[in-house]
């Protein structure tokens, strides 16, 4: 399993657009990807659930990726967070 944590610096947080891009981004991967904020964990592939977490600027989230292509998936997700969030 791959895991990393990230603190959001985008002023609007994980709003609709980045959440949508994330969903698309992980689609090709077989691994299971989850996002955790505090005691809430949701699958990254679920747009409305991820939006519903209300992740804001300054929040720290933990991303967990588990599966056959976890290394590549985790790297893709992490790069996206660093560049856009």
């Amino acid at each position, binding site marked *: 399993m791959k895991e990393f944590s990230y603190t959001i*610096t985008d*002023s609007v*947080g994980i*709003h609709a657009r980045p959440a949508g891009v994330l*969903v698309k981004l992980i689609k090709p991967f077989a691994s299971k990807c989850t996002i955790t904020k505090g005691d809430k964990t949701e699958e990254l592939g679920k*747009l409305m659930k991820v939006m519903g977490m209300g992740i804001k600027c300054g929040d720290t989230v933990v991303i967990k990726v588990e599966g056959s292509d976890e290394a590549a998936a985790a790297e893709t997700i992490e790069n996206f967070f660093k560049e856009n969030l």
Partner: protein
Amino acid sequence: MITATGKSILKGIAIGKIRFLAKKQVEIKENAADAAAELKRFEDAKALAIEQLQGLYDKAVVEAGEEHAAIFDIHMMMLDDDDYNESISDLINSEGKTAEYAVKTTGENFAEMFATMDDEYMKARAADVRDISGRVVNILTGADTGPADSDEPFIIVAEDLAPSETVQLDKSKLLGFVTRLGSTNSHTAILARNMNIPALIGTEISEEWDGKMAIIDGYNSCIYIEPEEELLKTLDEKRVHDLEQRAMLQQLKGQPNVTLDGTEINVYANIGNVSDVGMVLENDAGGIGLFRSEFIYLNSKTFPTEDEQFGIYKKVAEAMAGKKVIIRTLDIGADKQADYFNLPKEENPALGYRAIRICLMQRDIFKTQIRAILRAAAFGKVSIMFPMIISVSEVKDAKAILEECRQELIAEGKEIGDVEIGIMIETPAAVMLADELAEEVEFFSIGTNDLTQYTLAIDRQNPKLDPFYDSHHPAVLRLIEKTVQAGHRHNCWVGICGELGADTTLTETFLRMGMDELSVNPGSVLGLRKVIRELDLGTAKEPEPPVPAKATEEEPPAPAEATEEPAAVPEGTPEPEPEKPIKKSRFSLFGKNKNK
């Protein structure tokens, strides 16, 4: 004539006939016999909805740009969301509901989830879920969506406008809109701002208005239905005036802030958030004169890390592409509180533990911010500004900490950039010591709000004190003038970043004082530029009292301050400035570097 009031999104006037967008009420059958058939109906309707959304997306890309069209991309993804679909098929399969009932109920449940979030942006997303669900329901029930075309321009009145409805409107005919629902973050509001048309939300509307003549008065947040002749005439003149005014201000983009006689001044903008940068660029400000960094702290639940802050400062520095960005270090305390600072309650918060005082006592907090700023400086033209200064030693201490951070970062091999160092002049003490302070820094920025409050001993929050308050109080204006003179004596440029900077009745006074920069709200930049460009100081060298002369006769000259600077000139008789050449050179020419 009927008058209704609402919340105005954009100051402006729109005059035209109303088109009322009625939502068609369609009976929705609840129960179905054949679950498999209902599922198929849903899948077909969903596929058609996605096809329609793709069409809207393509249309919006052309009309409003990719950024704006993205919402329809999100809509398509929402329609494809696992949980959303699961909920619909559950209602059909296990509860024997019709496809339209299942979609409507699911849409309402999800919308409710967004509507109850404590985040204005997410709250506004409830409308998106309702929009997509409504689209599918309409397909299922055969109700059509969207208004019919019209030949003459119109004002739209509706309960609420869904994004898909706004994109279907013929923008060339749209004069303005009035809705009962909607928030300032809603698509309706965003569209109004983007299109620059007046809009009211939260208005009690009536279907009977349909087809009637109306005026939206965005200045007074109201709509007049069947207005009287007189009012129509007055507001039409105002509308024409607005259009001319706007066109004129737009023409000022790219023009220098220079008076008729050639005196130049920099006009910068104040921001409190990364998202304000767009407004700064749109209004053609020459730089950011005040970046209130405290928003980063106020929006956070714990101390923001160096990397978080670095990311934010870097974004702003890069967006400004080489234009100056003046970051004011943490100004928390007084009326700006963040729980995790655990600041004790104070009797006199305005005179208490705040701003630089916190930074110098809790150096770890200060160092985190300074390190972030130094690193961001590698990506643009960054200046750092310390608030609430009352003594030279504070500036020396702050600079020593900055130097310490610089050395650490170099040792760590981190990329850093040069920063210009300045201070806020917002206490009478700082003005009295301006000569000594100017020796330490490269610029002064006068915070007129606090300077006025501390000079007049008047709390601006207390309406009882209004009769005593004079924003043009001669004492404050003289302190400002003293600051400019002291700054220029020591090669220090001087600007204003408080509210007075945007007060155009003082623009001439400030120019005559030799002010180098005025930093105002982004929306005030072009208006201020216009005022500057119409001024003729012609007599710039003639001694003319820059502060109301009357007051100077009533008061005895202030006692000479106890500094080694004997230049305490009798008030109100400004000496011919020997430092004029400095003023002319403006700060791009100040090649000094006191901080290294």
